[in-house]
């Protein structure tokens, strides 16, 4: 299960402040902490107005790369900002994200194809987020046809089935997880990813919901996720799920995590 560290996101107030004030120490600390906690990619989202986004992304990228080797995940819907930002990276980044929206397929996919980037693909288009699993798969099929046409290997794709919050639709998790199973069956080389905290928005005791969701999703084939690598409870849930699903040879990941204090004292 590969973790995309979510913390460097300018839509969060404290990070927005650090970006505006060019607070190098704060950003580098966030990068290092996430890397040490085992993130496979660091998501980088400037969260600023399109007129400033490219500059802010480049500043973030340069400062993060100065302190860690972990690959970055460039998070933006703005093709102009992404094409500037991608020149600043020192290793192939992941791109977050494309979708069925024509603007993203035309503006962002070519960039990912040109640089051979892994790319997150959202199961939605310009009509919005499809309500049913079948409709999400229709969008996904359209996206994969286009990525193949542009020469992107299926293995570079990280499909996000879009976990909507359960508080407005009690079937949200079932729909997302059903979509994950379908992707696994139809596009076996593609990966899956998901932002894990959305599922519990609007409900209390969110960590309990998030952990159960990730467990069920991992059984359906989720092999990466966008989350807080510093969240010990989430980490414990993921490691335990890998153990119970039979993916932890000699239970070594689990016992190591135990000794490292992941499960508490």
């Amino acid at each position, binding site marked *: 299960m590969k973790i995309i560290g979510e913390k460097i996101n300018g*839509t969060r*107030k404290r990070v*927005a402040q650090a970006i505006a004030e060019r607070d190098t120490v704060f950003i580098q600390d966030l990068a290092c902490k996430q890397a040490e906690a085992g993130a496979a990619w660091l998501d980088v989202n400037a*969260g*600023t*107005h*399109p007129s400033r*986004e490219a500059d802010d992304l480049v500043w973030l990228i340069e400062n993060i790369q100065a302190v860690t080797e972990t690959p970055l995940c460039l998070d933006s*819907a*703005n093709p102009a900002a992404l094409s500037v930002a991608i020149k600043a990276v020192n290793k192939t980044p992941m791109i977050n994200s494309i979708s069925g929206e024509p603007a993203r397929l035309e503006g962002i996919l070519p960039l990912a194809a040109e640089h051979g980037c892994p790319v997150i693909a959202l199961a939605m288009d310009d009509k*919005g*987020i499809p309500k049913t699993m079948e409709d999400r798969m229709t969008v996904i099929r359209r996206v994969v046809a286009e990525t193949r046409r542009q020469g992107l290997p299926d293995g570079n794709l990280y499909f996000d089935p879009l976990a909507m*919050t359960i*508080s*407005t639709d009690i079937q949200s998790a079932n729909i997302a997880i059903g979509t994950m199973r379908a992707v696994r069956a139809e596009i076996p080389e593609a990966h899956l990813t998901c932002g894990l905290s959305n599922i519990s*928005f*609007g*409900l*209390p005791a969110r960590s309990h919901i998030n952990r159960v969701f990730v467990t069920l999703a991992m059984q359906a084939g989720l092999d990466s996720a966008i989350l807080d690598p510093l969240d010990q409870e989430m980490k414990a849930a993921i490691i335990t799920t890998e153990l119970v699903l039979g993916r932890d040879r000699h239970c070594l990941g689990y016992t190591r995590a135990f000794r490292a204090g992941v499960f508490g004292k």
Partner: protein
Amino acid sequence: MSKALIDAITDMREEDAVRTAKEMVDKGTSPMEVLESCREAMTIIGQRFEAGDCFVPELILAGEVLHQISDVVKPKLTQTAKQKKLGRVVIGTVEGDIHDIGKDIVTFMLDVNGFEVRDLGVDVPAAKFVEAVKEFQPQVVGLSGFLTLAYDPMKNTVQALKDAGLRDKVKVMIGGGQMDDQIRQYTRADAYGKDAMAAVALAKSWVGG
């Protein structure tokens, strides 16, 4: 006002609430009194939500209960007995953005606090806002957006209202993701709100409530 009805609604006892409302109407209780109890219950629920004591799904359930009770009561309402509203609000999530939960909560709170709300939904182009303002004639327009890409559509919507000669007839409030006075100035809105209670306070102040 009926304590039994208020309690049934605030306790989320859906069947009890609808049954109690039906019994009241059958016994000859005025429809206005039933609706008053509903409004009181919704105000309590709104306060609990703001205090973090009840949650989004409960707001949705309360809305559904109110809808069911309205269906029972409305046939008995006479023209003159229609509830007086504080004012009218047009609200929507701007073009290019489909986030709706925050907007839906604002709509719920405005409704509960006595406003007539026309919710245009999500991904709403400026022209649709203009059309709604012309037709519905609200005192207040609420623009919601979560993405940073929403600021320009907000600005364009305010400009479109100006171009249509409607800007002076309404007050515009914005809300959603990162909001501050800089963004407010950029969009040329009249005010920004951090949450649903702020939206209600702004709307009330503008209609003189």
